């Protein structure tokens, strides 16, 4: 009798476990953009956010420097180079239903130039910008899919 | 911290001036050595000793006994001395340049040449100390004058032992660079982080 129930129970546990793992994951896209007023040029890969960028900022030129998609697992930080001379550490610190909670740290020369926790819904983007780069500024566009 | 000292501090925290007198008798020389090490001038050092103990009486209520009392006191002494040098912001001018400014010491058996050399070295040292960043100055005084261990220095300076060693290393290096003309046969021996390029003969030992 016991054996009859063991296999379904183990299967159920495995299903729940894998579901929980799947639930504890989110794909996060990070784009590093240089915005400036030199020329009028929009990087083609930024067309999907150009409208927002245009409505929010007064720059005439946007160039994509880096595009990374991270598969974040709950509470496991991932660090990427956030160009130039900076790194960005992204951690998925919460995930429920349709809200992903991210902790984002931007570090330069071992100093936290930004430490933030944001909530993202699918399709929503957080733009982090301001640090100077050459003739323009750097903007990090962070969005999540899950 | 022994029982006697704990009791003395506790009485002082309650405003007992006699207890402050006991602390003063116990620590006045140590405090004087530290402040003199920084300012290298008697009258200034005495004023600073006075200032330290007045400050101590005012602020001893903040001492919670989590660290040793001497690390609390030493930190206060060093901060007071360094703040004083910052406030006075003196640019060092050699008093030997002024005619008649030199005062011979009380020890008449010393020849005037020796006194002059000693005075010159002391003024040169004071000049060099003023060039050091505050933390390196503090590290050198605590180690060379008071003989504190790295652990004790870390407590007094509120930093790690690694930081203490780094401050000592760079402080010594800088002082040796600044004082190389006064460092006798060992003028170039400042950099301990790289291997020596040439081995000198043992003759240097005989000269000392």
């Amino acid at each position: 009798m016991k054996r009859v129930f063991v296999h379904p129970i183990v299967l159920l546990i495995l299903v729940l476990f894998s579901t929980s793992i799947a639930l504890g994951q989110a794909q996060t896209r990070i784009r590093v953009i240089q915005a400036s007023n030199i020329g009028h040029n929009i990087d083609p890969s930024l067309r999907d956010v150009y409208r927002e960028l245009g409505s929010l900022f007064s720059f005439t030129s946007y160039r994509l420097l880096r595009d990374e998609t991270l598969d974040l697992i709950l509470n496991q930080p991932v660090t990427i180079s956030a160009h130039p001379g900076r790194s960005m550490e992204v951690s998925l610190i919460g995930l429920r239903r349709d809200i992903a909670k991210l902790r984002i740290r931007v570090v330069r020369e071992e100093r936290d130039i930004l430490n933030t926790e944001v909530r993202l819904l699918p399709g929503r983007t957080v733009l982090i910008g301001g640090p100077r780069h050459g003739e323009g500024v750097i903007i990090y566009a962070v969005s999540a899919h899950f | 911290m022994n029982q006697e000292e704990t009791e003395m501090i506790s009485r002082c925290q309650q405003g007992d001036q006699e207890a402050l007198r006991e602390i003063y008798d116990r620590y006045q020389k140590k405090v004087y050595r530290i402040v003199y090490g920084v300012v290298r001038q008697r009258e200034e050092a005495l004023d600073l000793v006075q200032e330290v103990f007045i400050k101590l009486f005012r602020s001893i209520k903040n001492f919670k006994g989590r660290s040793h009392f001497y690390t609390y006191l030493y930190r206060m002494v060093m901060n007071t001395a360094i703040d004083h040098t910052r406030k006075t912001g003196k640019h060092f001018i050699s008093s030997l340049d002024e005619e008649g400014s030199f005062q011979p010491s009380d020890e008449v058996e010393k020849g005037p040449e020796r006194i002059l050399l000693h005075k010159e070295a002391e003024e040169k040292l004071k000049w060099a100390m003023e060039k050091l960043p505050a933390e390196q100055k503090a590290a050198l005084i605590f180690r060379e004058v008071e003989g504190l261990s790295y652990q004790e220095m870390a407590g007094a300076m509120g930093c790690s032992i690694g930081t203490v060693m780094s401050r000592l290393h760079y402080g010594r290096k800088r002082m040796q660079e600044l004082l190389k003309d006064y460092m006798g046969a060992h003028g170039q021996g400042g950099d301990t982080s790289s291997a020596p390029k040439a081995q000198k003969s043992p003759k240097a030992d005989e000269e000392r």
Partner: protein
Amino acid sequence: MQDLCSQVLKLLEKYFDQEATDKEKLLVEGHLQVCPACLDVLRSMEELRTLIKVPVEAAAREEDFPWVWQKIEREIRSQRKPTWLQSLRSRLDVSPLFKKKIWIPAVATLAVLLMITAQLIFKETPSYPGLSDVEYVESEDYNVMVYQSENQKVTVIWLFEGTEKGASPS
């Protein structure tokens, strides 16, 4: 030999300060017997210590602290009993507010609070029910502004360097 020299040089200060382990002491002492250059370095440190320490020791030995305790006592006594005029003056005294370590952080805090409050007061987008996108933000080196776009699809975290203009969101 050069490798050993560089190894010993790294330990020399610890040895000089009597913080070396027994093993390190043996290594250093053994090497110093055969390396005049490293011995030279040690002698430099000894000479510096002598330069720094000896005058201080001499001054402390000779010092009899004339009138120091009396001055301390007098100062403490005078501080204990302020006159009515001094009490009034200390109550009305605003000079501590003008100390740099008070007014600089106070002004900086006020500026940050004003910036944050201004965003809330002058925000054109209506507040939306539910959660704010940015839960927490701090920066060691920049002033930070958080802005929500009208369509609420984009949130902007903008880092200001000092009082720069021209690079801010429109």
